[in-house]
């Protein structure tokens, strides 16, 4: 049973526009959420995170929104750039940002393609 779901396998966005990647979770024990970006032949790169006590966290072009009642989070990238083309993974943890004894639980990823 998937506890973290990314229902869009791929997303195509024009350069300069906003990219919105979505993630849903089912486990109420999750208290920390992270987004990782992955290029082919590389490991995932940490992007941004949010604690369950917040509903928004911003870092430059990246903003993560958390809706606890809906068990939903989203990553907004504004403006989208060609270098943003990658697979984006949503991850969740019940032990702070590192996953602790249970590790991080990942979604299947969304392949973001930025069109010129």
């Amino acid at each position, binding site marked *: 049973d998937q506890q973290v779901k990314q229902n869009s396998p791929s997303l195509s966005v024009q350069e300069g526009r906003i990219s919105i990647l979505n993630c849903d979770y089912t486990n109420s024990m999750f208290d920390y959420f992270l987004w990782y970006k992955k290029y082919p*032949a590389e490991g995932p790169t940490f992007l941004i995170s949010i604690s369950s006590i917040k509903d928004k966290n911003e870092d430059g072009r990246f903003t993560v929104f958390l809706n606890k009642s809906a068990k939903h989070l989203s990553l907004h990238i504004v403006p989208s750039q060609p270098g943003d083309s990658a697979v984006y993974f949503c991850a969740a943890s019940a*032990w*702070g940002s590192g*996953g602790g004894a249970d590790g991080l639980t*990942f979604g299947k990823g969304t392949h973001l393609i930025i069109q010129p």
Partner: protein
Amino acid sequence: DAGVTQSPTHLIKTRGQHVTLRCSPISGHKSVSWYQQVLGQGPQFIFQYYEKEERGRGNFPDRFSARQFPNYSSELNVNALLLGDSALYLCASSRGVAGTQYFGPGTRLTVL
């Protein structure tokens, strides 16, 4: 500072063989975690080690084992390889058990 390093980059084994994968964490990080990523899926947690002790284990068979050394580097061992063990094996390090995890480039294991 150097990031997480893993060796080897690629590995080809046959069914029934044994494999050892290696990971060096970021300097100052005392926790190492291992993940398996099969094609089309997100990474799946295998183990977490902190201060040379196993702190967490995912839903993997006993054929998978790991250890952490005094310099905080780590090895992942897989015995009696199956075709289904073909995957990208990722190592991540963090300062502590609950710190943000930073991933290495992975080892691509192919089992024939």
